[in-house]
């Protein structure tokens, strides 16, 4: 059944809409299929896990050298004092946003197709936020004093300055991480109970038993669960928007031409959703194939995600155009120069990579052939990820490297240690993601079961 992807989507007999789980598995089949990768991971998992662990080693080395030798091992110079670290930070935070969008915003909009992808998307959020948090921590010259950003009473009688968006970042990202983790965990509890009840070894039974918090699936449990889930979804939705808005304030609040722009908050959020959905596709397209879950994460799911990529990609494209328009319309020579410099200056290569990946490539999604082809979407999602990394690079570096005073113009080239941190952060991400695939059900079983036609009280009726 996993291989029988039909060209036309089959319809749900109760709702008359496209079927979310294809091939007509029973509830039991579904449980078996989703739990299989956790209960017997197989070779494919090791093939993914070991290289991830290797990259995590790269991260360890890059971080160790950074802490030992100092932040000067990176290629930063005096005009460009935010380089790859901030680029990677915004990149990873952006990646994380699709997870919450899928689990919270689509939940509020009653989009039932989210059920097949939300668990892994939330896991992606959490791991991406962990990766993101490394960068603001370690890009500081003295990371061991990071606790000074916390408003704690202390013997210095000093408090952080609440006017800095970098402090808001601390609150935004740590709140975002906490709420995402809670949201993910609340969603996991019924499935952990399933894992507990299926456990064959004592250790697994106890471990899943502890984390499932004594879930018995009673009506009262479910009632509280649904209410908590809805509340968290309602809380997480403004968080998604505000967190990336605050990240965009790091730039927009400054006075720099190319940064001081009021369009940044919505534009960054659109970019975050754009890149986040691309990352979800990058992850899920191989996973559904390796684990034979193509009937649960169907072409319809991929198509829906591709449509969101098209929407947000077009928003991002609009923002690029609007930035250029305002640069000309403002009549400010610095602003105009900043954008001419982006397109034709020493970093023009980065700018045009960004434009071709972010503006041109998502437009291919208009073609049905492309948005229904997992292979094409996989390639496209990689391009979007690259493009969105370059967007942050272009915004950060091209605005800094040539600003008001020509005497402080310089060219920024990263060193091998910048590269090590970036590659290493992927190691951290994929290591965590592999562990997630190994130990937790990657599809929200309870939720998928609830949207199957059999779950409807009207199933089997003829009217």
């Amino acid at each position: 059944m996993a291989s029988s992807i039909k060209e036309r989507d089959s319809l749900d007999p109760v709702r008359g809409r496209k079927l979310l789980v294809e091939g007509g598995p029973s509830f039991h089949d579904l449980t078996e299929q989703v739990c299989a990768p956790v209960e017997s991971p197989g070779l494919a998992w090791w093939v993914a896990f070991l290289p991830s662990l290797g990259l995590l080693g790269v991260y360890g080395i890059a971080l160790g050298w950074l802490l030992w030798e100092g932040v000067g091992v990176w290629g930063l110079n005096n005009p460009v004092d935010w380089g790859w670290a901030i680029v990677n930070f915004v990149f990873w935070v952006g990646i994380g946003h699709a997870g919450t969008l899928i689990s919270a915003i689509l939940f509020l909009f009653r989009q039932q197709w989210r059920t097949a992808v939300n668990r892994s998307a939330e896991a992606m959020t959490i791991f991406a936020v962990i990766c993101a948090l490394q960068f603001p921590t370690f890009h500081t010259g003295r990371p061991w004093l990071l606790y000074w950003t916390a408003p704690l009473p202390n013997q210095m009688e000093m408090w952080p300055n609440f006017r800095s968006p970098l402090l808001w970042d601390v609150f935004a990202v740590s709140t975002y991480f906490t709420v995402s983790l809670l949201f993910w965990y609340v969603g996991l509890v019924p499935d952990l109970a399933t894992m507990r009840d299926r456990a064959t070894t004592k250790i697994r039974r106890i471990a899943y038993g502890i984390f499932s918090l004594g879930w018995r699936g009673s009506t009262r449990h479910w009632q509280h669960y649904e209410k908590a889930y809805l509340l968290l979804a309602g809380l997480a939705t403004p968080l998604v928007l505000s967190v990336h808005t605050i990240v965009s304030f790091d730039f927009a609040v400054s006075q720099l031409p190319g940064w001081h722009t009021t369009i940044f908050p919505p534009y960054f959020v659109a970019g975050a959703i754009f890149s986040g959905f691309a990352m979800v596709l990058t992850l899920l397209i191989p996973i559904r194939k390796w684990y034979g879950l193509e009937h649960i994460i169907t072409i319809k799911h991929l198509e829906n995600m591709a449509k969101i990529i098209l929407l947000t990609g077009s928003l991002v494209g609009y923002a690029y155009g609007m930035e250029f328009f305002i640069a000309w319309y403002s009549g400010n020579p610095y602003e105009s120069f900043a954008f001419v410099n982006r397109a034709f200056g020493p970093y023009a290569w980065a700018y045009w990579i960004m434009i071709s990946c972010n503006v041109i490539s998502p437009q291919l999604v208009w073609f049905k052939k492309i948005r229904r082809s997992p292979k094409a979407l996989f390639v496209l999602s990689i391009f979007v990820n690259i493009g969105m990394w370059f967007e942050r690079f272009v915004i950060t570096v091209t605005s800094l490297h040539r600003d008001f005073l020509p005497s402080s113009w310089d060219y920024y080239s990263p060193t091998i240690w910048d590269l090590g941190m970036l590659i290493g952060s992927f190691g951290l991400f994929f290591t965590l993601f592999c562990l997630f695939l190994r130990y937790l059900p990657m599809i929200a079983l309870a939720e998928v079961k609830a949207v199957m036609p059999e779950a409807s009280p009207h199933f089997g009726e003829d009217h």
Partner: protein
Amino acid sequence: MPAIFPRWTNKIPLAVGVGAPLVGAFLIFAIWYWWSPSFTDVGYRPKQPVPFSHALHAGDMGMDCRYCHNTVERAAHAAIPPSATCMNCHSQVKTDSPRLALIRTSYETGDSVPWVRVHQLPDYAYFDHRPHLAAGVGCVSCHGRIDGMDVVEMAKPMSMGWCLDCHRNPGPNLRPPSQVTNMNWAESEEAKSYDYKNDPERKRMPAPPVHCSGCHR
């Protein structure tokens, strides 16, 4: 299906509910107490190479602080007296005391006595003695009753918060500038009624800085 966990595990939530606030409260206490300079610094009392007694010199014999620490009114740094200052008297007094051997050697050879510094601020805090003395902050306010110490110890934490408390409200630590080295002033009748704002001796009011560049230049 048999139960996984024994019945006593029902008590875990209660134990966590009671235990977590206790652990939290203890952590706050532990950090507040053992990580604070008023615990770690106050009472610091290193052994000095020469057993100099402030209690004898400043207390019993009543020497003025400025006889030895002679730069305190004129320089940022309050000098440790050179061996020559010791020898002003000790070339005549206790000339063969073994406890003064190091002073005599130092005087003859010119090598410094390796005194151990008790009040050590980090180098990014630029403390200046002059304005404090000019404003009428007595020695006692920061260094305690030195005249009763056989071995000098830290009487105050010298933490930034401690500095700022006084800079924000200097009144309680101010006295007539002529009384700064008087160890007993605080016990006097005058101290009880002293109001620095109505002191005719003062030409201008002290304005202690509370901005960064006051100390972190």
